[in-house]
């Protein structure tokens, strides 16, 4: 029975999560860790709920989300275009390939000080950093997907009278979609992480800034809240993208 099997698995899988929370609670209850350093889980989650309802915290979330989406959107547009172009044209490929090989393993966060100098401390520098970090997984998987499109799909479309320039949009892009969306998924989680870190390093608002503010005043509870908030955000966005993915790829096998 599929459903019973699944629910058994779910309970099984939830065990370690419950264990972690129990251990956390235990550390506090048995006085191993003082509440100042490790607030009990109940306190953290009720604080999170309470914060979610306040206007100031919502503003922090909005600031983070704006940067996150702007950076991610730029990364998707640039990454997919360059990826497809590099797969389509040997000349572009020859130029893009070595540049990507050099830039992909470069720790983008090291560029952050330069971005601060060039674009200021506002949205611009953080959006650029997010875009730079999310760009490469999207670009590489688009390239991979576009260059491994089954040759005979292309031939079939050409024989049916599709002009060469339309092949790109009618065959290559849809056929590369599973790979593109995998790249987007990785890029999205990276975006979440990077925007938060950038806000922690220097910012005046956003969830990352909220953590740093709490750390300066040793408010352990308030340090946990933004961290959990950004992780939840990551999970939710990941889930949403998963839903979009299964809709877009409904025709593909094992999507």
């Amino acid at each position, binding site marked *: 029975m599929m459903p019973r099997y699944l629910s058994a*698995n779910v309970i099984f899988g939830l065990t370690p999560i419950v264990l972690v929370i129990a251990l956390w609670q235990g550390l506090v209850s048995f006085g191993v860790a003082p509440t100042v350093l*490790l607030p009990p889980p109940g306190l953290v989650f009720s604080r999170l709920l309470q914060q979610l309802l306040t206007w100031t915290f919502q503003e922090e979330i909005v600031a983070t989300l704006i940067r996150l989406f702007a950076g991610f959107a730029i990364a998707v547009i640039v990454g997919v275009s360059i990826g497809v172009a590099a*797969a*389509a044209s040997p000349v572009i490929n020859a130029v893009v390939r070595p540049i990507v090989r*050099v830039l992909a393993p470069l720790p983008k966060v090291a560029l952050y000080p330069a971005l601060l100098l060039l674009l200021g401390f506002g949205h611009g520098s953080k959006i650029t950093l997010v875009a730079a970090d999310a760009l490469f997984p999207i670009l590489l998987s688009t390239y991979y997907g*576009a260059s491994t499109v089954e040759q005979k799909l292309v031939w079939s479309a050409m024989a049916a009278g599709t002009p060469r320039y339309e092949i790109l949009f009618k065959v290559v892009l849809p056929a590369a979609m599973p790979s593109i969306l995998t790249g987007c998924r990785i890029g999205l989680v990276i975006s979440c992480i990077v925007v938060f870190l950038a806000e922690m390093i220097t910012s005046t608002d956003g969830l990352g800034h909220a953590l740093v503010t709490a750390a300066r005043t040793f408010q*352990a509870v308030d340090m946990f809240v933004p961290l959990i908030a950004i992780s939840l955000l990551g999970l939710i966005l990941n889930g949403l993208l998963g839903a979009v993915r299964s809709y877009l790829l409904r025709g593909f096998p094992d999507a």
Partner: protein
Amino acid sequence: MISPAALVKRTAPVLACIGLLAIWQVASLGLKSDSFPTATDAVRAIPDILGDKESLINILASLRRMAVGFGIAVLLSIPLGLLMGRSRAVSAFFNPLLMVIYPVPKAALMPIIMLWLGVGDITKTLVIFLGVSLPVIYHSFEGAKAVEEKMLWSGAAMGLSPLQCLVRIVLPAALPEILTGCRTGLVLALITMITSEMIARQSGAGNILFNALDMGQYDTVYAMIIIVGAMGICLDAVFERVRTRLVRWSEPQFDMPLSFS
């Protein structure tokens, strides 16, 4: 003899570096901004940093923590990933937990862990360890899952115990995928290291960067960026070399583009 085409192919990354520096040079000359020194100025500042004993010790200490964190993470993550890949129960047990941990920004744990363990090496190494673990577990898991059942049957028929199967069949068969995970992990280790140092602002390469930024030493900022970037590129290149050597037997990795025109 190397053919000209192969020569271009081999030197392409170097050419790309030179090209990027040239673009930087032109852009900075065009902008004429104090906060955007030319590439030559930045390159000229590199010997000063590497010649300075304190910053050199700082950077080397960073690298040592990175190596330790990366090493421990790899040693623990590969067995866990392989077990998850071969046992449905183990993967059902750990997968949800790992999925929950996945979107947590590991470097952001720095202030919290600092609160508990102070600002010593342990804290910094622990953060790097956390950053590296997940991709290595994930790729080992995927690699072990993809091992062909028939290969294990052959092993079992030859009298290998389950543990021997894991070490002598699953591990080598999953090696290409595991090394891909390690490569991602290595770059992530460097990123986590720099980021956590930027957040903690105690010591290390990330700290040098922001100190220079605060003091307006822009040449130093850009020189440090080049140094960190070079570390990333070199680590990746060296690892890639080791990787191709180790998995020479496997199917050639996707490399040549297949033009669709």
